[in-house]
């Protein structure tokens, strides 16, 4: 092939013969590189997506996150209020040929739960849980209080072989390095880890002993890390890669016209929204109209917050700024997810109504505002901030727009002010629900910030309403799905519908592109997994 290419080049000077080397190999150009092959090192999208191909979890999500299915687990059910029983499928093999049993599950949960080092662990999902082996293929997971999210939590922690050998001291004697060079990277997933050339590529190979529910359409999957957006698109157009993820919205229309490519888009579990300072009487970036500091904070008034929400023309943002690649949002999760409210609608663009509400609240003359946002974190984040700034300014709230790189922004937005308090008054951020239902965003974004309870960790506006906390806690202790869903919907209705604790803008839509003849099943969790690509006949 290579020789052919050379002859083609030298003799004819025409396009190199393109196409993959082997029919069942695929090369995928992806934006983000994982930080480790150790499955418990870093609880983050790129790692979870990549490693989920190598390691099984007890349960997993279908690409749309609308259905959970058992990967290592054959069935799961609560046997009493505080105990869940997980049956493990028989005959699952690790890549080294050994069997996956209850011991491996317990080993994995222990290593994940006690992980030292790393960049944010899976403790969030293992905390307060005790695992007990009943027999080789049955595990009981016990909690102190009733815990309905058990199945959801088991879609996160991956299962490694308890026989893996390492060279380290802590973390059961296996360090991240042992995974990165492959010696300890023994999972039971559909693909085996072959190599990781940092900054360049990760290569996976089909595991012949795999018997699980996930398809294995490829013999070899190569992930190439191409961070630069134009370069990633060009690599696809040049035929160097078969597929790419994170197609920039500005290129989507153009690529759609290209007969050699096909695109697939899917709504993600990530909502883009605005936090408003609700804990300071004098908020540093809420001023009088001519920019003087004020000792009153209009954002503490729910009517003002509601009015601001009504001033935003979400349709215009989606159509103009996002080029149609987003869905206007009225709550925390898009349709189809668990724990949504059916009553909440997308806030209508209503300048007159907003004006009236402001007057009712005693702020008819308006005030000055600064909106802060990152400029390299979410799709078109800086442009969205600018659009909102203009909409507010046009409606009597003169608004300054300040955007900055994410590595500066998030520190200041979370704890830039004295005493580790959020620095800004009005920020744009996004949130993807890791558990695929609405308790995670309510807990982190809208529950009262309380370190001892682990609530409101990302509540950068410090919205606080005891009713929300109460309904949420009730929901978190309700095992019955229908009842819990109703409670979560109620909490959302109070926090967003009544209080406008945050202003939801839109759900992000992600776009993947492939060469013609391939298809990608878009994933709501924003992961780019090789096995979700299929050949179309």
């Amino acid at each position, binding site marked *: 092939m*290579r020789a052919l*290419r*050379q002859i083609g*080049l030298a003799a004819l*000077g*025409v*396009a190199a013969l*393109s196409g993959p080397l082997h029919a069942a190999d695929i090369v995928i*150009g992806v934006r983000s*590189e994982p*930080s*480790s092959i150790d499955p418990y*090192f*870093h*609880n*983050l999208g790129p790692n979870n997506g990549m490693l989920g191909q190598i390691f099984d979890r007890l349960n997993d999500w279908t690409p749309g996150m609308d259905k959970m299915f058992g990967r290592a687990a054959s069935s799961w059910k609560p046997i009493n209020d505080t105990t869940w029983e997980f049956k493990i499928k028989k005959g699952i093999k690790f890549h080294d040929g050994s069997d996956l049993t209850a011991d491996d599950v317990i080993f994995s949960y222990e290593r994940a739960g006690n992980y030292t*080092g*790393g*960049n*944010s*662990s899976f403790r*969030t999902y293992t905390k307060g849980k005790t695992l007990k082996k009943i027999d080789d293929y049955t595990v009981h997971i016990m909690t102190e209080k009733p815990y309905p999210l058990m199945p959801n939590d088991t879609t996160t922690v991956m299962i490694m072989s308890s026989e893996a050998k390492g060279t380290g001291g802590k973390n059961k004697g296996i360090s*991240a*390095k042992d995974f*990165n060079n492959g010696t300890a990277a023994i999972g039971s997933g559909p693909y085996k880890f072959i190599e990781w*050339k*940092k*900054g*360049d*590529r990760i290569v996976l190979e089909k595991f012949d002993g795999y018997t699980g529910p996930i398809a294995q359409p490829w013999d070899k999957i190569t992930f*190439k890390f*191409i*961070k*630069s957006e*134009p*370069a*990633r698109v*060009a*690599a696809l*157009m*040049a*035929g*160097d890669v078969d597929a790419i993820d994170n197609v920039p919205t500005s290129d989507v229309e153009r690529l759609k016209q290209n007969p050699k490519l096909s695109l697939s888009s899917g709504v993600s579990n990530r909502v883009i929204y605005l936090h408003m300072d609700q804990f300071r009487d004098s908020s540093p970036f809420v001023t009088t109209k001519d920019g003087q500091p004020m000792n009153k904070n209009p954002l503490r008034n729910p009517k003002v917050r509601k009015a601001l929400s009504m001033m935003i023309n979400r349709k215009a943002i989606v159509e103009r700024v996002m080029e149609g690649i987003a869905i206007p949002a009225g709550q925390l999760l898009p349709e189809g997810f668990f724990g949504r409210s059916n009553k909440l609608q997308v806030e209508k663009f209503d300048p007159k109504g907003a004006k009236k509400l402001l007057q009712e609240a005693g702020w008819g003359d308006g005030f000055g505002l600064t909106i802060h946002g990152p400029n*390299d974190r979410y799709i078109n984040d800086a442009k969205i901030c600018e659009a909102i700034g203009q909409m507010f300014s046009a409606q009597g709230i003169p608004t300054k727009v300040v955007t900055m*790189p994410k*590595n*500066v922004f*998030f*520190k200041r937005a*979370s*704890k830039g002010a004295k005493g580790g308090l959020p620095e800004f008054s009005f920020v744009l951020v996004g949130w*993807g629900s*890791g*558990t695929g239902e609405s308790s*995670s965003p309510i807990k*982190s974004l809208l529950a009262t910030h309380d370190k001892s309870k*682990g*609530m409101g*960790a*990302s509540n950068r506006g410090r919205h606080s309403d005891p009713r929300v906390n109460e309904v949420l806690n009730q929901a978190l202790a309700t095992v019955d799905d229908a009842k819990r869903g109703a409670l979560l919907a109620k909490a959302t209705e109070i926090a967003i519908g009544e209080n406008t604790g945050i202003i939801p803008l839109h759900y992000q839509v992600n776009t993947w592109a492939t060469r013609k003849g391939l298809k990608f099943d878009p994933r709501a969790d924003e992961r780019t997994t090789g096995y979700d690509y299929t050949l179309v006949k």
Partner: protein
Amino acid sequence: MQSALVVVIMSFIVFSGVFLVGDPVEILVSDDADQEEREMMIKSMGLDKPFLVQYGIFISKAVRGDLGDSFVFQEPALLLILDRMPATMELAVVALLIAIIFGIPLGVWAGLKPESLASKSIMTGSILGFSLPTFWVGIMMILLFAVLLGWLPSTGRGDVQIILGMPISVFSWDGFSHVLMPAVNLALFKLSMVIRLARAGTREVMHQDYIKFARAKGLKESRIILVHVLKNILIPVVTVLGLEFGGLVAFSVVTETVFAWPGMGKLLIDSIGLLDRPIIVAYLMIIVFLFVFINLVVDICYSILDPRVRLEDIKS
């Protein structure tokens, strides 16, 4: 002695600069993590300690050759960078060769026949090389040679062979085709500079007495140019290229990003994005060493090219 001082001062500036920007924990931590988890991370990275203590720990380790562990990968920062170094070196050397092989003949030609059309085109072209932004040229090259013509692969590095213990890719066709575009992209600026230096040098040298004398002696024109002119214009070229080679290595960042070249520059950019402080500090320390080393090599090259410059003179 001076160099050591430079290194120490650099380490302080870099460390305090990096310390001021952002919070790595906020960038790395998962959205779901609660406050307790965040605090554990801050502790495990040693970020709970005051600045001077952190700097003290860094220095005490650095003198033992340990520049700390990367926050992101939790492997030694130095090794991570050295791991990427061959790729960047390879790119820089190829770019340098392109600049010399094409730059000197073109520059000499333009210097010998300053009024000819070819010379004028060369000089105009070199202005473009100076003024067009690297990333734009890079993307245009990808569009032309990879997307439209399909002659060269668009991004990445080709197959690697181990030669003299170094992973090198240029000696296979696959590797060479991958390196060609980024190397030309990186070389453009230097190429223009070499052309201009060579042209200016040639024009000056051609009026010197020894060239007239050589002509009077009846030497062939080719010998005059290849021996007498070339040797004399090389000194400024070597000086500048020597210093610029450091620049090529240190700041191939843009080219590496555009072409997804897995070198140190790309690692640096990624690390800045993720606030991986140990990598940023270690990278800049390595670059400081590199510049000091290159200056030494340049001085040695002088003495070979111009016997009047002796190493003793340089030392004093």
